[in-house]
């Protein structure tokens, strides 16, 4: 025997290390395979309690194996097993229902309140855009075609007669085409909103432009109607869903601006960390924006052509706006009051 003494003993002890722990690893693997496929409540209480114990045992085996064993297949196995366990145990800790509930009660309004400054800027830009659009079309009606794409204008332009314009506002209770148009507008507005949000990372410049442009379109359309003395009526027609929709688009722009400004001025964080932080707040706002837009699409598809009284239209539009503002900005105080 020419080998140094103890070589066989090392081999034996490492073999018994694996032999003793192997059952735990196998049990952990089987348990993980089950919980990854089905809900945790299908486990018995004992199994649920054993999960973190088995995880820690796998981690400790990994540490021992790394320090003493040179079997790379074994170490790879333990690393993969521990990683799976880590992601499961430290991953999503709450059920999807709780997370959805939390989103509506807390996360969404909080994220929107967090963006209050950007929201004001965004609303301000929409107003400025609307005034500019109104003024441009009033000074030269050729601006209208430049501002509103013909496919969106739906036959409304400065040369339309008052009757045609009025018919768009009040007719169509029987027309099915318009409900399809509402769905199209929903997807269109959602894309405008996504664009305003997602392009924000270029230092917020595109977001600002998109919000301005959106305001311009509003102002241009308004001028066409106001010139024919239909301004009040158009306001009603727009406001039934427009308060929700415009608010949503303004919020999307605010979300984009938040990302852009945080990347430009990260403060004490690194640029990457600041972007990640702003991105998460903005994304929460954006999911809410999607839902607002869906809601606006429903209001538009159902309400706009069937409710033809101006007063009712203004009431619904104003009511919706009040509802959103109360939900986002006032709800917090009520909850604080209740403790």
């Amino acid at each position, binding site marked *: 025997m020419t080998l140094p003494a103890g070589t066989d003993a090392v081999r034996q002890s490492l073999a018994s290390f694996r032999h003793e722990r192997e059952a735990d690893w196998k049990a952990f693997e089987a348990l993980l395979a089950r919980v990854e496929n089905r809900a945790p409540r299908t486990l018995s209480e004992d199994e649920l309690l054993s999960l973190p114990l088995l995880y820690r045992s796998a981690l400790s085996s990994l540490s021992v194996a790394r320090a*003493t064993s*040179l079997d790379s297949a074994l170490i790879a196995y333990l690393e993969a097993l521990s*990683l799976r366990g880590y992601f499961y145990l430290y991953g999503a800790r709450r059920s999807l229902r709780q997370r959805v509930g939390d989103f509506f009660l807390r996360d969404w309004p909080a994220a929107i309140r967090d963006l209050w400054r950007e929201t004001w800027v965004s609303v301000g830009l929409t107003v400025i855009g609307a005034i500019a659009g109104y003024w441009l079309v009033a000074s030269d009606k050729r601006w209208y075609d430049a501002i509103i794409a013909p496919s969106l204008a739906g036959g409304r332009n400065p040369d339309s007669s008052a009757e045609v314009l009025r018919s768009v506002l009040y007719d169509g209770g029987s027309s099915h085409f318009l409900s399809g148009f509402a*769905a199209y507008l929903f*997807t269109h507005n959602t894309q405008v909103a996504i664009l305003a949000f997602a392009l924000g990372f270029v230092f917020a410049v595109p977001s600002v432009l998109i919000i301005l442009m959106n305001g311009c379109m509003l102002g241009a359309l308004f001028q066409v109607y106001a010139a024919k003395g239909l301004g009040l009526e158009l306001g009603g027609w727009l406001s039934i869903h427009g308060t929700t929709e415009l608010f949503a688009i303004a919020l999307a722009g605010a979300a984009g601006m938040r*990302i852009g400004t945080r990347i430009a001025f990260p403060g004490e964080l690194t640029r990457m960390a600041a972007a990640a932080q702003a991105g*998460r707040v903005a994304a929460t706002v954006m999911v809410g924006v999607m839902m607002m837009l869906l809601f606006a699409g429903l209001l538009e598809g159902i309400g706009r052509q069937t409710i033809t009284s101006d007063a009712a239209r203004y009431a619904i539009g104003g009511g919706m706006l009040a509802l959103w503002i109360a939900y986002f900005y006032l709800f917090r105080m009520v909850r604080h009051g209740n403790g």
Partner: protein
Amino acid sequence: MATARNPAELIRPLITPEGVDLRVKLADAGTRASAFLLDVVIIVAAAIAVTLVVIFGLGGLGVKEAEPLFIVWIIFIFLLRNVYFIAFEAGRRAATPGKRIVGVRVASRSGAGLTIDQVIARNLMREIEVFLPLSIIAARGGAGVADTLSTVFGLVWALLFSLFLLFNRDRLRIGDLLAGTWVVETPKFKLVEDLSQRKDPVDKRFHFSPEQLDAYGIAELHKLEEVLRRDDYSAMKAVAEIIGRKIGAKVEPFDSKAFLTAYYGDLRAHLERKLLLGNRKADKHAR
């Protein structure tokens, strides 16, 4: 451009609260692309299937009756694309079916649990990275107003954003950047036999002196393990010849496997003994 020639470049530390470094491996660009393409195939297949069912199922209906369903269809297609990624990545596996097939998942860069707003952020950005320019091109093409310039612009846009992950160390999309996430590999290994415990009646014939065992280090041991596990006759013959020449042992070709198994067992025990004594001999050049 950072290419991943060296796999170690993609390994990042992940320290668990228990203090163990799990060393996650980031998914490389090719894996990401194939996962994404699989997802696109699934989404398109689902959209076509639903459309066909709707068309055949409602063949009897007139245009007027079918109109409300048309709205539902438009919204469905939109939601399919947007919800698919978010719903799957917010689930327990944090991976879409495409990612699951290629064996990767989304994880938080901070090491904490992945939250739903991170998943939303990274997937909303995908809309602008890929889907938006392509759908604009498609829409313009459909309306017959697509000119070369805007098509090229759209394609360059989509390409630039899709290739963004090649230009940074951590393989981040813009969406990953904003959400604070990355995509890591979740390999699944089976527990395989310990080669040093393999009992081969022939390998009792082989005995190695300490000098012969000092010829190699841990890196070579792992290569040898790979060769043995692959169990390819010609590879083992070649390796046995090289080792035999280096340590001065005569090996018959038909004995290659037995010789390598015996040498692996003894070399590993030798190196593990050194390891216990505090000497990690990294490769054959180390002392």
